[in-house]
């Protein structure tokens, strides 16, 4: 092998370096029309069919629920899912504000239009074609319905590789309204975190359409904790955090929540939550943010990789 210096000096070798670099940086072109098409389908699918993990969790709950009315509610929810699936109608009339997480490999180049426009277009088409409810107002104070359920809440992240991973999570607001952020002091520690979670769930009670899934973000900054809590809701039910203390906390919190007695539909019982999912991040020496994002039993999330 020639020395690096020698290589750069020779015109031939310069070309070689150039082509080698090209190879490493090989670009994958993705047409934004594909993004629109997939998001359109995912909006409909998520609203008509609950994911298998959620269905299974509800089925397990029906077998373990103590209260007769709780059992009946869970049975009705099962029937509701079957009707929605068969007739291709929404599981819940609140078909949510569409939240889209999109992970983009850094070797991807989008072509054929603007990516953000393509995401909005997918939601617009999905909510139109799927007869989904248009629940978005253009301004929080003036409150005029936009008529097509856009704009969408989009969270981008750039990752390695050349893939595009899209998660669509239409979020209903019965439970969104009961979600909270607690900016704790470091001295409050794990006990403070537990109190914040339980207090939030207790206050949510029947309003959040239990049995619920509880997404928790611990650490980061104010907005980072909220985003982690939202992301935690898209995790497969039953999957635990890889961090040992967080996993233990998930297990303990689920058991505590199910001792509150709120029950299915808040009518009393032993199934108040189906899962507690915790995501964590580094934080500041002065802070301990805890965000609790609650989702009803229609915890819709669908992921596709392009």
């Amino acid at each position, binding site marked *: 092998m020639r020395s690096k210096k020698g290589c750069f000096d020779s015109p031939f070798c310069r070309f070689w370096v150039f082509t080698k670099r090209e190879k490493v940086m090989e670009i994958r072109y993705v047409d934004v029309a594909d993004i629109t098409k997939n998001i359109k389908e995912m909006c409909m699918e998520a609203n008509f069919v609950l994911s298998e993990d959620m269905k299974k969790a509800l089925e397990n709950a029906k077998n373990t629920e*103590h*209260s*007769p*009315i*709780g059992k*009946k*509610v869970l049975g*009705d*929810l099962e*029937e*509701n*899912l079957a*009707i*929605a699936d068969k*007739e*291709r*109608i*929404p*599981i*819940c*009339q*609140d*078909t949510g504000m569409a939240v889209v997480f999109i992970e983009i490999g850094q070797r991807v180049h989008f072509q054929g239009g603007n990516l953000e426009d393509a995401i909005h277009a997918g939601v617009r088409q999905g909510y139109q074609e799927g*007869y*989904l*409810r*248009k*629940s978005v107002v253009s301004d929080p104070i003036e*409150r005029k*319905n936009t*008529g097509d359920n856009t704009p969408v809440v989009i969270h981008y992240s750039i990752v390695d590789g050349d893939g595009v991973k899209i998660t669509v999570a239409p979020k*209903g607001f*019965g439970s969104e*309204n009961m979600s909270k952020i607690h900016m704790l002091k470091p001295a409050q520690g794990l006990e403070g975190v537990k109190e914040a979670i339980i207090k939030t769930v207790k206050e949510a*009670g*029947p*309003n959040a*359409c239990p049995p619920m899934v509880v997404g928790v973000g611990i650490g980061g900054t104010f907005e980072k904790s909220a985003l982690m809590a939202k992301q935690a809701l898209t995790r497969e039910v039953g999957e635990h955090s890889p961090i040992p203390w967080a996993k233990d906390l998930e297990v303990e919190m689920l058991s505590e929540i199910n*001792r*509150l*007695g*709120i*029950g299915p*539909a*808040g*009518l*009393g*019982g*032993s199934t108040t939550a189906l899962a507690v999912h915790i995501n964590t991040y580094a934080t500041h020496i002065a802070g301990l943010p805890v965000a609790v994002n609650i989702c*009803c*039993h*229609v915890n819709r999330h669908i992921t596709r990789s392009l």
Partner: protein
Amino acid sequence: MKKEREITLPITSEVADQLTIGDYVYLTGEMYVARDAAHKRLMELIEQHKELPIRLQNATIYYMGPSPAKPGNVIGSAGPTTASRMDQYTPTLLELGMKAMIGKGKRTKEVLEAIRENHAVYFAAIGGAGALLSRCIKKSEIVCYEDLGAEAILRIYVEKFPVIVVADSKGGNLYETAASEYVR
């Protein structure tokens, strides 16, 4: 679960007084559908002493905003929305004759008191069971505020629509008592 019974709408004070928290009731008859934006408009009319587009005497209001009906269907998915957002309007509507509400979730002390004073009732339908509940809705028409989209006021005819009494005219509140039974 306590008593199961069938009731034909409208609900009068006499009927409301016979209901107790925990009763499982199947409703048949006509009711209105209204939620946040429609309530706001009704209140504006009331404040201006103008005529209302709906008849409140012995009315049942279902807090709901359906998804659009697919061709050939009466209505889309049609489950209850959170009632507490209507709390600030509810005592006035009860004073004007409304007798029953269907929604989900807790109400304020003021609302529970107004339910007791006006011999009315608050029912819960199962939140998130919109596909199942839509099957009980046999007719649906827009009464007014079509411009509000999913928030327009509707008149619907239901058959054996399943609800549970969660606040009764004796001051009972099922959400308080039911949970305490299963606290461990």
